[in-house]
């Protein structure tokens, strides 16, 4: 593996290897000394063209725990705001000797462009591109599900688990990545969203089942995990009203509240990639319940990103 661009590229073996490695990384994070010398001398650049707190901090923590040097580059206040192109930014990073670039960009396909361009030699990790993919988020979601729901996590997939992904599927790169990764790992995925917030062509994906209200989905299945997505108002150009009539109606039809939570099986876990809109897609009772693993997802994110950095950077360089 040279780059991590899309969950679609991952085979079941690749994905399980990343999850197993993440489990070993997580074990090292319970020690008193959490720093490992593994990536000493490597340079990881966090290249963020879009605001992000948790993903950038998570990648930064992961790289630092493995002793890599981290350079943070955010578009705000950089030469990008003066009009520099992605290409010139990449050439600059190449000149600085970046071994890996973690890229977050508002344009779908930016990470692929960077990886395929030949502008730089390092590995590219997609940390979210537009409304397209966010593979490390899907991997940490899968890791969290496997840890809670699989009796023998090591080496296992997510076979037989049923997962609901609820909300703004259209704008969600988290759903974009989970829509490939979870079926690859053997889980059955149910999407729940208003028709306006589903991407065109979703019917052509037989592995993904679709419901138009959360109540219908809860009637139809006993879910092992339910993933609530953030309503991405900033991507809803033309005003939120263009996609659904009102926030109140959205909450009524798609929000996870205490009553809907009670209809989930006892073992089911509640997930959210964050940041949450409390009171819109998820109520405080659900977000703060003991079944919520939302905070643990953040901790697992560091382990999964350590695994991804290790697998991309530790081996010999010739394996392009």
């Amino acid at each position, binding site marked *: 593996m040279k780059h991590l661009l899309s969950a679609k590229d991952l085979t079941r073996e690749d994905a399980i290897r990343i999850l197993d490695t993440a489990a070993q990384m997580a074990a090292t994070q319970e020690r*008193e000394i959490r720093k*490992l010398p593994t990536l000493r001398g490597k340079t990881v650049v966090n290249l963020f063209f879009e605001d992000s707190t948790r993903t950038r901090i998570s990648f930064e923590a992961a790289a630092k725990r493995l002793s890599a040097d981290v350079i943070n580059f955010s578009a705000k206040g950089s030469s990008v705001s003066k009009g520099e192109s992605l290409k010139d930014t990449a050439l600059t990073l190449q000149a600085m000797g970046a071994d890996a670039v973690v890229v977050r960009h508002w344009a779908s396909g930016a990470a692929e462009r960077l990886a395929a361009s030949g502008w730089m030699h390092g590995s590219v990790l997609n940390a979210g591109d537009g409304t397209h993919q966010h593979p490390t988020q899907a991997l940490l979601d899968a890791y969290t599900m496997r840890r809670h729901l699989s009796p023998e996590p090591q080496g296992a997939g997510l076979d037989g688990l049923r997962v609901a992904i609820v909300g703004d599927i259209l704008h969600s790169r988290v759903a974009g990545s989970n829509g490939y990764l979870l079926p690859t790992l053997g889980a059955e995925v149910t999407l729940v969203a208003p028709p306006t917030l589903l991407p065109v062509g979703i019917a052509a994906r037989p592995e993904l089942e679709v419901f138009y209200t959360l109540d219908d989905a809860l009637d139809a299945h006993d879910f092992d995990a339910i993933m609530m997505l953030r309503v991405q108002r900033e991507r809803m150009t033309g005003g939120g009203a263009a996609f659904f009539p009102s926030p109140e109606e959205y909450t009524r039809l798609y929000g996870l509240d205490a009553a809907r939570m009670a209809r989930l099986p006892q073992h089911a876990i509640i997930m959210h990639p964050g940041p949450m809109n409390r009171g819109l897609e998820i109520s405080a009772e659900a977000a703060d319940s003991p079944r919520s693993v939302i905070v643990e997802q953040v901790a697992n994110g560091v382990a999964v990103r350590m695994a991804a950095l*290790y697998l991309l950077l530790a*081996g010999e360089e010739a394996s392009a």
Partner: protein
Amino acid sequence: MTGTILGAPDISRAITRIAHEIVERNDGAANVILLGIPTRGLPLAHRLATALAGIEPAFDPTSRTGALDITMYRDDLHTQPTRTIGTTTLPEHGIDDSVIVLVDDVFHTGRTIRAALDAISDLGRPAAVQLAVLVDRGHRELPIRADYVGKNIPTSRSERVDVHLTEVDGDDAVILRRGEDA
């Protein structure tokens, strides 16, 4: 001289002797923790623990044995294909102030042990670290020596020493093979 150097009875005798040496050197085994380096150091550590329990009945072989994966401390990561990371398990009470006996199958360049020493220093501060190996084949590249050796086998650099253990390979044997470029 190639072929099978040690058979199952030889390996068993070597482990029994090393167990006695560990007890003698440390005035008993009360403070001893055995850490096996995967893959084949681990079953060897378990066998040594069983042998120690035979000598010192107070020694609990399961709670005093662990595994130490050194993959993330290797100095050759960037010259090899990516390695899978193994599991590290330590005794419940940690390793501080105990005597650690590292257990590995073949002692060669010393780089594995160098990595293991780094790994140990990240895990705690033992009173002492000792090294037990089944086979010492020479060709050290670092100033490290073993405290307990099952068998010294003079080799040339191109030769290969294969250790087979029942737990991993289905049989017990130490085999010396001619290298491909010899």
